[in-house]
């Protein structure tokens, strides 16, 4: 999906979010695979309209990769995405998402300089399972195009209000 289409989709979805059905907040983590190997990822995400066909996601993702020769590459990204869930009220809700965000990297304890801050284009899919009592379990995979392209796979736990 082209960046312009993502921005247009978010602009269209934002007003719908005001009268959205279902707000879900989750925390979780997983693995982040980039060109230099596998690291750890963590984050938090709010989905506005989690019981709607179209929802709006706002999230933060942090990553850490150990660098060869010592030190670490630390990533922080914030993003917004449109979420499409064909069966949004089922106990098992599959969904796809695409959006945009801002990615920054920092290195520490290393001879390597961090790449510059850059836009990021996250896209992927996942499965949300409603455990009952408003508790949700979410598993997702995200491809994040940016200065350093990466794959993140993880799980998170949260509440749907």
């Amino acid at each position, binding site marked *: 999906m082209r960046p312009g289409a993502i921005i247009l989709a978010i602009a269209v979805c934002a007003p719908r979010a005001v009268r959205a059905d279902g707000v879900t907040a989750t925390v979780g983590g997983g693995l982040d695979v980039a060109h230099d190997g596998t690291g750890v990822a963590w984050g938090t995400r709010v989905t506005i309209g989690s019981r709607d066909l179209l929802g709006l996601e706002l999230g933060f993702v942090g990553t850490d990769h150990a660098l060869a020769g010592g030190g670490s590459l630390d990533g922080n990204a914030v993003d917004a995405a449109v979420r499409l869930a064909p069966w949004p009220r089922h106990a098992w809700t599959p969904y796809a998402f695409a959006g945009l965000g801002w990615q920054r990297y920092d290195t520490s*304890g290393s*001879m390597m300089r961090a790449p510059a801050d850059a836009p990021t284009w996250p896209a992927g899919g996942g499965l949300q399972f409603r455990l009952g009592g*408003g508790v949700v379990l979410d598993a997702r995979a995200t491809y994040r195009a940016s200065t350093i392209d990466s794959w993140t796979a993880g799980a998170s736990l949260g509440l749907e*209000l």
Partner: protein
Amino acid sequence: MICRLAVALAVTAAARPARADGPSDRTREVEAAVTTAMGAAYLVAEVGFSRQLSPTTCTWCDPDGFDAGARNLLRWRDTSLANTLSDATGYVSAPLAAAGLTILAGRGHDWRRHYDDVVPIVQAAIAASLVQHVTKVTVARQRPYAHYAAPGTLVPSEEDNVSFWSGHTSLTFALAVSAGTVTSSRGYALAPVVWATGLGLAAATGYLRIAADRHYATDALTGAVMGTLVGYAWPKLVHPWIGRDVDVVPTANGLAAVGRF
């Protein structure tokens, strides 16, 4: 008498007992706004302006004998592995354990109870992180990896002079103690499991931060103390209704208040 009867009828007509001392849905909306604002403030400080806020030189540069000795004793050969593991315990396992076990401890209740239980934990974690952030840029203590680096082997980074105190450690202790405080105040049977798991992960995180050469022992110990204080005080002071499980229920003679006192 008529008044008592009317109240009894109204309460009886309700599908569930009315909470006499709990938050309303309006209060929950305010809590959501407060939590969002706290989280946004932290993200702006940590992600948005960390380069501008972080000190470029240290004002507290040399370690004392205790810290130097503890570093020699506890630092791993592969510090990058310890750093990654500390991120996994501090940012993934500890939040999931605090939220997940608290929800599990309160199983059988609806989303309102889970929300009321989890929000103080989230807020305590963010509050501890905000206090730590202000402190670390103010104190400007040099990290051990930067202090002991051989000349010419390190590209200066915004992370080099923000050692005091350990944010990973204060975060995990705030999560552990707030989750333990909430579940104990509620009288949940799983409260001891919540305490043991949370404090175990927090202690492991503090140790790993020293093993990773990211912090001195006094950074981790101070983080543990500060996280404990915030984790205990936040649910008690900001959410005082937790632990007052008082329900008003109809009886044959009118109303009765039942719960833990």
